[in-house]
């Protein structure tokens, strides 16, 4: 019991204390606690930074896109798989759609890069084959978000569908029989039995997803970044890494990171509160 508690204190709660760095002017020799207080100076610096709005916009646009496109697809998949009666086909489909989830971020990005490479990539060879010009996909800032979002859906949709499938399996069978006797078509059955049945699950997952809006998968964005697409791909998390760790600007980067975490927490609490009031479902 003691070692795991120590773990949480040292690696989770102690860093929260360390976040006072955001209000200090960090000095390596004096250490965190002896460094002078500067109040909100680091935050002001960030808000006045010409990059501020770009960073916020990129972060929100990317995760908003991911949420809009990525959230409904697993639900649709689960509803469709649920209609399949052939167990072998069902099992096979789940096995296949689940597999990409196990690919690491580095490999995922490597695959994206190999497919979208300017000259030798599969996508461009295919484009040329049909008589189109080659496109430097990863060099186009405008394509960055779509590449990120759709590769993410490719990788995780099958995995995410499992939770909804579990919820569908929990629906009372008598409801289906009642629907059948009332002469409901398969589509009507989905609309009036399946969807309401998994609504609580949908709301919970939605809350959790919105709570992650600011906490985007930093690793993948960072790996996909290049100087050409930076205009759309620099998000708050990658910026923190760049100015904080690479340029050793600890106090400033901590302030930026803290800003991100707080916004995230506020978003989560807001959506949770709204969901509680409207649908009576919430995570606590």
């Amino acid at each position, binding site marked *: 019991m003691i070692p795991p508690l120590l773990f949480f204190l040292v690696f989770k709660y102690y860093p929260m204390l360390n976040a006072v760095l955001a209000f200090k002017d960090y000095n390596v020799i004096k250490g965190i606690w002896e460094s002078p207080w500067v109040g909100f100076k680091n935050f002001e610096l960030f808000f006045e930074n010409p990059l501020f709005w770009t960073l916020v916009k990129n972060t929100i646009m990317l995760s908003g896109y991911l949420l809009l496109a990525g959230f409904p697809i697993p639900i649709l998949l689960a509803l469709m798989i649920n209609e399949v009666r052939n167990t072998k086909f069902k099992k096979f489909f789940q096995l296949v759609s689940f597999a990409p989830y*196990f690919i690491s971020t580095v490999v995922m990005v490597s*695959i994206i890069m190999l497919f979208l490479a300017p000259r030798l990539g599969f996508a461009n060879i295919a484009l040329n084959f049909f008589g189109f010009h080659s496109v430097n996909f990863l060099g186009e800032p405008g394509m960055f978000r779509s590449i990120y979002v759709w590769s993410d859906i490719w990788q995780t949709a099958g995995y995410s569908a499992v939770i909804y499938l579990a919820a569908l399996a929990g629906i009372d069978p008598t409801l289906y029989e009642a629907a059948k006797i009332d002469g409901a078509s398969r589509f009507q059955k989905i609309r009036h039995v399946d969807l309401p049945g998994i609504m609580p699950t949908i709301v919970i997952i939605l809350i959790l997803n919105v709570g992650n809006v600011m906490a985007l998968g930093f690793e993948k964005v960072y790996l996909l970044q290049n100087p050409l697409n930076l205009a759309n791909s620099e998000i708050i998390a990658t910026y923190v890494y760049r100015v904080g760790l690479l340029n050793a600007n600890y106090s400033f980067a901590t302030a930026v990171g803290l800003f991100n975490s707080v916004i995230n927490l506020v978003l989560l609490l807001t959506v949770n509160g709204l969901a509680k009031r409207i649908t009576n479902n919430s995570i606590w």
Partner: protein
Amino acid sequence: MAIAVQKKIKESAGDRAFLITIHIVLILVAIAVIYPLIFILSSSISSPAAVTSGKVWLWPVDISFKGFKVLFNTSEIITGYANSIFYTAAGTIISVILTIMIAYPLSRKGFFGRNTLMMMITFTMIFSGGLIPTYMVVKQLHLIDTRWALLIPNAIWVWQVIIARSFFQSSIPEELLEASEIDGCSDLRFIWSVVIPLSKPIIAVLVLMYAVGQWNAYFDALIYLKSADLFPLQLVLRSIIIQNNSSGNMDAAAMVERQQLAELLKYALIVVATLPVLVIYPFVQRYFVQGMLVGSVKG
């Protein structure tokens, strides 16, 4: 039951069309998922020239294992592989033990302050000090550039604690503990000879999740490690494929062939880095699903 009813009442034409559409969509999705994987596997065992000229569409062309041969002669890849195996084994053991150590007490009703503790742990899932403050802690503990930096700072995942805790709660009845206490069994003895043997499914889930996570991890290595001989495979992979630092010790003679080989090497590397996980995966899939379901029951 439901199936029997459906068979009795004849499917309407609309329903049949609906079903067929669903099947077609699912088949298309399955193809979209599996095609890139087959393509990469085929490319990795084709000849360098066939890959770079776009002759590989589905099946391998001019089968050759040249990429793999070069791969296993590159020292940084061998080191990376060995490191990854070490991190995966050691990290999984540490993580699983720590997770059970906290999840089990939290599942016992008599445990003092368990709800407060659970709240505090869950809170770390939605709020954190941030990248830099965490980095400073690791630095203060002098873990930077040691193997421990990959094993300790991320050892416990809150989500796994939640899953393990709800498993213990639902499958190890409180009465069992009471009975063994009457028999004069100590807490430790109880955990060792009753809880652990009864918890094989959840331990399997924990092992799998942590092992895959550890095998695929690269970010901690990126920020905490400096010495190349400690790098896990994923980091080596990143430097070769994403940053395009093809290693200098490839002995291909002509420039063209060298470039083709570098291209091929990337495919081979992806296969080598992913294969262990994908090969085991079909056998353990049901544990994964089980684990997710256990976790989602109590949310």
